[in-house]
């Protein structure tokens, strides 16, 4: 009741999107996380450049440089050097680039597949639902790591893009179930019944009426899928089933230098820190989005 009152007494009115944005930007954790993530991504992509575009960092990840002392971090090599003298900053930035691309790609693919599968299962019910949800169950009962490892190995000839596609194909199940639940309740709402009564077709109802109302759930799950993808890629690369050399990624870096943990700890810490920063930021953003979309769920501070 008070919400309605506020909105009508306010002179300026807000659309739903504006309300969400407003609440999101008041979530301090999410804003800090967004800044951290932005800095990480910008630094990673500008320092080495993308493809033909050169970056501002004067060293590259392949050349071997003269080793300064043990290779510990210096001004010349802020992240230190590896055993054979490669610049570790360049290596970590390259790994971050690849990891971020994989994570965003996996998030996008799994969100699209999960949303469509969940929406169709929830809206059509009947045999469509039975078939789609049994497929989902099947994917869920196979250990994710094993499935991803096998598919990742198959896709390894296509580099990180193949890996991205394969990871996307195995990680949509959770979202599909969430979206199906949302759609099941939304399809009984009066505005959907009203749309049906006007003669609106099923596709239009799903994509114009139902899904926009589930967008909160979808966006929140998508962010969480991104952070899960980072961790999954890291695990796979660490185990040797993910990104293959000469490509690199944060997980692969850790795996390659795991023996150096005691002697050259920076080789372990930098990629680890990057993984932590990215995964944590994405999770915080997800939290902020969830609070923004559903303010009643969790009001910690006004």
């Amino acid at each position, binding site marked *: 009741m008070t919400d309605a009152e506020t909105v009508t007494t306010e002179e300026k*009115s807000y659309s739903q999107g504006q309300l969400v944005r407003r609440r999101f930007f008041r979530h301090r954790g999410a804003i800090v996380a967004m800044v951290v993530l932005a800095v990480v991504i910008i630094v990673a992509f500008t320092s080495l450049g993308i493809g033909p575009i050169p970056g501002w960092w004067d060293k590259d990840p392949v050349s071997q440089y003269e080793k300064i002392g043990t290779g510990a971090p210096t001004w010349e090599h802020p992240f230190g050097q590896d055993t054979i003298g490669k610049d570790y900053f360049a290596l970590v930035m390259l790994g971050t680039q690849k990891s971020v691309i994989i994570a965003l790609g996996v998030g996008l693919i799994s969100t699209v597949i999960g949303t469509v599968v969940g929406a169709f299962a929830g809206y059509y019910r009947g045999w469509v639902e039975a078939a789609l949800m049994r497929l989902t169950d099947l994917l869920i009962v196979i250990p994710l790591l094993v499935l991803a490892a096998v598919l990742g190995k198959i896709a390894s000839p296509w580099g990180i893009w193949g890996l991205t596609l394969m990871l996307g194909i195995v990680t949509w199940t959770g979202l599909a179930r969430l979206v199906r639940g949302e759609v099941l309740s939304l399809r009984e709402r009066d505005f959907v019944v009203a749309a049906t009564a006007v003669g609106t077709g099923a596709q239009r109802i799903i994509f114009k009426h139902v899904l926009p109302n589930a967008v909160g759930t979808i966006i929140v799950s998508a962010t969480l899928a991104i952070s899960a993808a980072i961790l999954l890629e890291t695990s796979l690369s660490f185990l040797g089933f993910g990104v293959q050399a000469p490509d690199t990624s944060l997980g692969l870096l850790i795996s390659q230098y795991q023996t150096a943990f005691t002697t050259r700890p920076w080789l372990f810490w930098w990629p680890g820190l990057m993984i932590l920063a990215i995964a944590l930021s994405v999770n915080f953003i997800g939290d902020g989005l969830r609070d923004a979309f559903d303010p009643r769920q969790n009001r910690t501070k006004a």
Partner: protein
Amino acid sequence: MTTLDITSSSDATSTGDAVLSFTDLEVTFGTEFGDVRAVKGVSLEVHPGEVVALVGESGSGKSVTSTTALGLLPSNARVSGTVRVGDKIVGDLDQAGLRKMRGNDIAMVFQEPMTALNPVLTIGDQLTEALQLHGIAYGRQATARAAELLDMVGIPEAERRLKQYPHELSGGQRQRVVIAMAISCDPKVIVADEPTTALDVTVQADILDLLRSLKDKLDTGILLITHNMGVVADMADRVAVMLKGDLVETGTAEQVLTDPQHEYTKRLLGAVPHLGEGTGQADVAVAGGEEQRRPAPALALDNLVIEYHRLGKPAFRAVDDVSFTVGQGEIVGLVGESGSGKSTIGKCALGLIPARSGSVRILGEDFGALSKKQLKDLRRRIGVVFQDPAASINPRFPVGEAIAEPLVVHQVGDAASRQQRVMDLLDAVELPRACYNRYPHELSGGQRQRVSIARALTLEPDLLVADEPTSALDVSVQASVLELFTSLQQQFGFACLFVSHDLAVIDLLAHKVVVLQDGRIVEQGDRDAVLRHPREDYTKRLLAAAPVPDPLEQQQRREDRHRLLAELGDEVVELRIDPTSRDDRPARRKTPGAEGGNPLGGAFHGG
């Protein structure tokens, strides 16, 4: 009984005997858009054995006011002023003190009994919980007391009911359980927040009878929150009218309802549809004139049967052998209580539910015999308005898009002509054109329902199905929406199937009335015949139960109703606390049962 002692009860200085009093109460909510003042200085008293009705429209602060009495406001609320329950000041109590006060001194009856009761606990568990928490009775004694409480509120076979879950009871019985819980610790005052809004009229009349006997026999003070003026006339000794957080008028029920002083109260009362005074459409010829009535009727139902399939159980027959027609340009009111199948018929007429047998013909075309393409074309000619405008308009669509949606679906016109059509419709439903880009949540309930009506009229349908279009609205809003509806009907000349539980609304609107009970037609005919000279008992009972907003007339009607119930072999519901009155069980509730009557019955209300 509506007799009252005007002088003593309206005398605000005698704070001594008030069981509940608010003095200069102010409540402010801190929200993300700044502070909202919900209650702005309200002073009010409730005395023992007195019913004070707090009326006002949604958002007027009446529920907030009553919630302060139990100290149940959310944490973002700031309260100033004093709230006194008996001799306790609510603001001074700590959590433990508050818990002790709730139940013992003040209890609450909620609007929706299904949500007020915990669905996973038995009735018995929930009733004994309060008794044990407050140390009134334990174990077997508590169970016996619970059974006795159920018996008091007129639930037969109390012992068996204790082991049942809320979903096994009917709506009226659930509300009785809630009342039994409220009186379990013998509170001095009960706050009843819209206690009958979710109930059917006949059940509402029973619950009101029960509440009335509560104050007569237990001397409990009742703060009744309602928006229904009929309920006020039926129950209240004194009335307080709230408007936007302010108390604008107080007085005895008779004063306020028959001779209102404040402009707002007058408007509020003027807006209440009065059963028996409705003009219907009798003076207005069916739009379009006689010659148009001859072609196929807008809607014809023939021996319609609708069944819901249930897993592992025989199908539930929601509508059984129903036949009636809605002529072109005619408004037919479909009345019945919840579960009578009226909304199911509405959905079937929209082609959303298939018929088990029988036929539904819209403008001469049978729903069952159409191809998908033809069905879509037929749907262009049917419009629909639902009960809750908040739920029936897609919250993600701006108003203009929502109204234009049918045009887009049926690919009528281009962007410019659609926009023009929407503007015309906004004018027709008397909404400012600026609404075009607004979102539904920015509009009030009445405005939203206008959008909903505009959307239904976008394709100029021949038939409009309106499913309780005004029951979610405040009375004054309802009046203006109904007025608009009538004028639009004359302007556009659509036929209308108007589903409603409110006889007064039907009286105001319909040409013909169809009365439904348990999926069957009880009575149908012209509005005048059915509502003025009902032939069937059920219709009579329905008419008798609808309260009117005039205390004297309502008292008369109540007595008439009690007489009618006696004629029909029913008993008037009341609180039974005297063991000797145990035989007066309502006859329509079969099998008295519950022989384990408890001698504690008389010993109970010491307070």
